[in-house]
């Protein structure tokens, strides 16, 4: 397994190795940052290029993923839920069972090991729901690195438990009060910190967005999801799946599942964005379904923006999907037609949240519930012998207050 990160990362799809040398996925991606960050990004790229082929680094990463994260995560046949939906068989990739409860740690482990090899002593991160912040604070605690997490003031209110978890882990949580006071503003603030403290600081971005090399690097660390799922379904079901479904905010859990299947032409890919109150309402977080290409946070990609090119506020019941951009590789997969992108409303996601909880005894994260909700639309259209793998990217414990509040229940 230890060699696979580099193999996966260099497997060309449709004859193209993406991103290209300067970080582009077709017209998307790239490096759109102020000049001061160009040198540190190049330093990061060189370090990553070097270590992603380094046997010792890969062995350490592999050991940590097994012993600390608890990988491989199971691929579980949700037979009862499949029967209830009627149609294709649904398999859940159980990223919710990872340490810290989501896929985020696959990436933070990798980047933190890289930070240590680069001699950086201070880690910074942005977080929306707090999952990436917790996953970052966790690895920083384990490696004894200073950790500062930027979080929108609005999100701090919404996710008090995760804020406390980060503090318990020794991280400093800095409230961001600029702009819309949510994830995008936290990312701006983390970038500002990085540009000020580049000598000793490593910025762990939590998704497959940002300037090159982040989209490629985060993808490569998250590809462990798809690699395992591919091996597991071949072993457990004897064949490749017919479809993959994953939710897309920035898109790291989706790209992690999709990427190792890109060359399997028979596998149809579905990325599920947050339709919030409905795409027609304008109150959503679905740049691929209802946005336009532009430049934000260091890359060109689909964005939620107004006619003047200002970024607009997004709406989703799921804080982890509440982001106006999306990873540039998803933008490219959309344009190329290799992946399909759809959106699921808050209400549909909530329904799936309850259904999976009651029928399978698994409480899914609200983010993952968007993917599950789409499965309930897709599976009935397919025969019973078809296979869908859905990425259960996180567990829903963090969301119980949100769900209770929404339903008028006081805890």
């Amino acid at each position, binding site marked *: 397994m230890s060699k696979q990160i580099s193999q996966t990362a260099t497997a060309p799809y449709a004859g193209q190795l993406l991103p290209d040398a*300067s970080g582009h996925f077709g017209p998307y991606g*790239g*490096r*759109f*940052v*102020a*000049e*001061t*960050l*160009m*040198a*540190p990004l190049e330093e990061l790229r060189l370090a990553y290029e070097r270590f992603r082929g380094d046997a010792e680094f890969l062995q350490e990463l592999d050991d940590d993923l097994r012993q600390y994260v608890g990988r491989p995560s199971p691929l579980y046949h949700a037979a009862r839920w499949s029967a209830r939906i009627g149609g294709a068989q649904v398999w859940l990739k159980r990223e919710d069972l990872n340490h810290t409860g989501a896929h985020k740690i696959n990436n933070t482990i990798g980047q933190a090991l890289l930070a240590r090899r680069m001699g950086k002593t201070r880690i910074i991160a942005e977080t929306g729901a707090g999952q990436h912040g917790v996953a970052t604070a966790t690895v920083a605690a384990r490696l004894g690195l200073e950790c500062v997490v930027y979080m929108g003031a609005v999100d701090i209110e919404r996710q008090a438990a995760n804020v406390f978890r980060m503090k318990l882990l020794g991280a400093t949580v800095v409230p961001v009060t*600029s*702009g819309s006071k949510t994830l*995008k*503003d936290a990312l*701006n603030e983390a*970038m*500002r910190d990085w*540009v*000020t*403290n*580049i*000598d000793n600081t490593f910025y762990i971005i939590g998704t497959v967005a940002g300037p090159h090399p982040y989209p490629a690097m985060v993808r490569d660390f998250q590809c462990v999801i798809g690699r395992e799922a591919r091996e597991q379904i071949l072993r457990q079901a004897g064949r490749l799946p017919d479809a993959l479904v994953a939710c897309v905010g920035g898109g790291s859990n989706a790209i992690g599942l999709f990427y190792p299947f890109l060359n399997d032409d028979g596998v149809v890919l579905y990325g599920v964005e947050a339709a919030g109150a409905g795409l027609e309402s304008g109150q959503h977080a679905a740049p691929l379904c209802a946005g*336009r*290409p*532009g*430049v*934000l*946070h*260091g890359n060109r990609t689909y*964005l939620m*923006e107004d*006619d*003047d*090119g*200002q*970024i*607009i506020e997004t709406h989703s019941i799921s804080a982890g999907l509440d982001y106006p951009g999306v990873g540039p590789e998803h933008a490219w997969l959309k344009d190329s037609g290799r992946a399909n992108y759809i959106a699921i409303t808050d209400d549909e996601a909530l329904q799936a949240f309850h259904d999976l909880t009651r029928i399978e005894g698994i409480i899914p994260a609200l983010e993952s519930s968007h993917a599950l909700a789409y499965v309930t639309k897709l599976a009935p259209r397919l025969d019973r012998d078809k296979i869908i793998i859905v990425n259960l990217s996180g567990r829903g414990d963090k969301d119980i207050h949100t769900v209770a509040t929404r339903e008028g229940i006081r805890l």
Partner: protein
Amino acid sequence: MSRIEQCFAQLRAQGRKALIPYVTAGDPQPDVTVPLLHAMVAAGADIVELGVPFSDPMADGPVIQRASERALAHHVSLRDVLGMVREFRRRDDVTPVVLMGYLNPVEMMGYEAFAQAAQAAGVDGVLTVDLPPEEAAGLVDALRSRQLDPIFLIAPTSTLERIERICANASGFVYYVSLKGVTGAATLDVASVAARLAQIREVTSLPVGVGFGIRDAESAARVAAIADAVVVGSALVKTVEAGAGRPQEIAGHLRLQLGEMRAAMDNAVADAVKHRLRGK
């Protein structure tokens, strides 16, 4: 010869350094901006830099972030900013205007359409903070074809190779960012800036401006002694912010503040010349 080139040629002939003040367009409200530009010129500005408000100003510190937010509360768009430049040009056909902002509003308008509209409005240079030369070919071509100067930043972290690449894309002047950080951050270290300027001048004959961390007459004077231009942003935007309750008084405050910087810069440059002459 572009207005910017002309401006630097004239300053060189007079043995003076350029003072380049920055304000965000539409801060604290749209009708204040054009009078502020005229007031800054009256107080001794050689070039004016006008910020285009953006929702996500990643390279800016809190002072200029808040300026963007105040302007965006009035929905000030890139088109509105060009309208302000057009209005400014009715009374001032000499002072160069540089737009400073982020790429996305320009992307949304389209490079060609933007360059055409900017030229028609009377803009002279365009600094797009989040557009390094690697990604800039399309916009640079569009600007050049309309005789607009693409202005680029050089950072303390820029390698010599990058400085060469930046200067090959730039015209008008280049802008050296005096410290690692965002706008309005800590005070600058003049000695290390001087050393970097010497490196940059080996690569280019373009005038070199210095910005980030210049907060008062004293620091402006120290930078004037070593650079071709002094860019002042956050220190002025703080004055605008303080006057947001009485916007008609902001021009007067800015005039005083800039007047002090102008005088200190001119004295510093004159002293430096005297010093050199005495040395001979």
